[in-house]
């Protein structure tokens, strides 16, 4: 048996369509079976409410008198892209304020506008014959704009990697605060309520399909940027009229140490046309898995520590490397439910009819990494090979002499086998002389927890270690922990000029 979209729309118009949320669907299928559920249910509504950085809106401000062709535009000191026609601009959610840093940004401007708050528009131009004006400052409400069209290049991730951190230091990421030593796990996504989890083959979710976006009726444009449904990470590009949106479904946020983002409520109604759609909308949290990724590894290809289901993540505690670890959600499940519930009401009341995609989204496509034609510089290329070191048995006086003679402030300390066991600095030696005359050996004053780098480590990563630990040099060690060089803040200067300059 199959059901046509026309039949479903007729029922919606007649006010007798049976609409359920994706959360209710599994139990219905359990009770009635696939055939029974197909007969019973016409539409399954989905919803998600989470941080969707890749969001923003196009504005048309109307023409001023005398007119201006805006070259640079700021809304509440947040810059919008103005490389389009005269009074058009695109404001991205993650753009930060030039005056308030990460506390305020594009996401906040979008929320403020939807909330009915006045926003200051500032623009500059060089002035042309047709657009003579060079500057403008004015205050605008959302209703003052001709258009405010939200166009979000990448929303509604099918699922998302969960995050943890194996390092010794707290990390502040777009996945929130990650405690040291895998002290917590952070995840995002509504699991079985997520739109794309209910149609992973993209049979009915595609271009032109009506959706819930930020409280308004929006539409799917097509596949989102970085769409990778072939690996289970499909995305959608969506649009909607901001003037119809509501603040409760559009909320700005700041991930401390990372920056500004926007929480967006997105929901897609799924017409239950056949048995395959019955089965895909009966998905449960147990069926949807993701990886727990170690964000402590500062590279693109971060390792996975384990596979986990959304059911486990939502339970609040999971087992990770032999310990019980608490989980935190970044997206709001309560709000995701509200989205699915409101969408359900719209359809029940005949306020939204469904449509099939005018163009389908490729369910097999995979996103590729960037093709890099130049390699990021590595520590090996700028490190100092001329390393002066001491052994832990040597006297402090010897260390002092070496520091003076080597004109360095850092001495790696080696054991008898040449393996790195510590580091002493000019400061350590001076302190030993001033505070306690009894200390004699290098091992008595050395720092044992050495922060180090590796020849193949990208210089950006090493530079961040210097900055984060407030130090000025890193011993460079090989796989056997033998010192092969030293990287000091001064060496970073080699990156400016010469072959790395572009």
């Amino acid at each position, binding site marked *: 048996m199959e059901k046509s979209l026309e039949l479903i729309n007729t029922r919606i118009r007649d006010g007798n369509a049976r609409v359920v949320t994706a959360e209710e669907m599994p139990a219905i299928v359990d009770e009635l079976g696939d055939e029974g559920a197909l007969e019973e249910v016409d539409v399954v509504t989905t919803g998600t409410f989470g941080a969707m950085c890749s969001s923003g809106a196009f504005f048309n401000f109307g023409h001023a008198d005398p007119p201006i062709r805006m070259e640079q535009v700021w809304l509440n000191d947040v810059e919008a892209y103005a490389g389009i026609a005269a009074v058009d601009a695109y404001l991205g959610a993650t753009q930060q304020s030039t005056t308030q840093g990460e506390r305020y940004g594009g996401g906040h401007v979008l929320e403020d506008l939807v909330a009915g708050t006045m926003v200051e528009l500032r623009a500059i131009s060089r002035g042309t014959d047709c657009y003579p004006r060079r500057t403008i400052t004015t205050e605008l409400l959302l209703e003052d704009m001709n258009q405010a069209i939200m166009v979000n290049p990448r929303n509604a991730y099918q699922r998302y990697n969960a995050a943890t951190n194996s390092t010794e230091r707290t990390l502040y990421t777009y996945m929130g605060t990650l405690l040291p030593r895998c002290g917590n796990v952070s995840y995002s996504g509504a699991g079985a309520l997520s739109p794309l989890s209910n149609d992973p083959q993209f049979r009915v979710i595609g271009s032109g399909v009506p959706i819930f976006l930020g409280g308004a009726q929006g539409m799917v444009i097509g596949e989102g940027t970085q769409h990778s449904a072939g690996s289970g990470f499909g995305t959608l590009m969506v649009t909607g009229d901001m003037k119809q949106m509501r603040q409760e479904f559009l909320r700005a*946020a700041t991930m401390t140490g990372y920056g500004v983002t926007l929480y967006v409520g997105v929901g897609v109604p799924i017409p239950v046309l056949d048995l395959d759609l019955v089965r895909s909308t009966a998905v449960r949290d147990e069926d949807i898995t993701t990886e727990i990724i170690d964000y402590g590894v500062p590279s693109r290809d971060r390792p996975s520590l384990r596979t986990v289901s959304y059911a486990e993540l939502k339970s609040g505690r999971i087992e990770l490397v032999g310990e019980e670890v608490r989980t935190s959600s970044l997206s709001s499940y*309560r709000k995701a439910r509200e989205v699915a519930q409101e969408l359900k009401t719209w359809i029940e009341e005949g306020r939204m009819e469904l449509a099939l995609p005018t163009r389908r989204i490729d369910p097999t496509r995979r996103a590729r990494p960037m093709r890099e034609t130049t390699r990021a510089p590595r520590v090996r290329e700028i490190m100092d090979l001329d390393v002066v070191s001491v052994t832990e048995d040597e006297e402090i006086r010897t260390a002092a002499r070496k520091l003076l003679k080597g004109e360095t402030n850092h001495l790696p300390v080696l054991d008898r086998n040449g393996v790195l066991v510590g580091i002493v600095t000019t400061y350590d030696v001076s302190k030993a002389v001033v505070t306690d005359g009894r200390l004699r050996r290098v091992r008595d004053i050395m720092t044992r927890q050495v922060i180090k780098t590796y020849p193949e480590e990208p210089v950006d990563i090493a530079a961040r270690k210097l900055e984060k630990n407030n130090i000025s040099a890193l011993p460079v060690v090989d796989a056997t922990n033998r010192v092969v060089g030293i990287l000091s803040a001064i060496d970073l200067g080699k990156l400016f000029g010469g072959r790395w300059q572009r």
Partner: protein
Amino acid sequence: MKLLVTFSRRGGRDPGREPIIARVVKETGVLINVEKAYIESMAGEVLIDVPDADAELVRQRMEEMGVAVRVLEDAISRDETECIDCGACISVCPQDVFSFDDEWRIQLQQGRCVLCGKCVRACPHQALSLQQ
């Protein structure tokens, strides 16, 4: 019950150098749990946990010894118009203050808070603040 003990180190007296907590424990026999201590050059602050029934006695004796004592209720304040019930606070809190109820709303158990402030930084919506 949580008591926030604060003292100044200005002037002649310096309660920061006196074993006040030990003295109160010995005198009264009340078991005091020190949850956080923060001593600076000019002032200090200690968060202690005592059985509810003994709080008044402890407060009285400590104040006699020259430190200020304040009962700490609702240590964390949550702005309900900003909070969207995401749950980012749950796993960063060392004291299990936050949890979800059956409707996926955030619940607070204020009595467990030791004012570490981790949740304040972790909240994406800046909905949490510490009572001062």
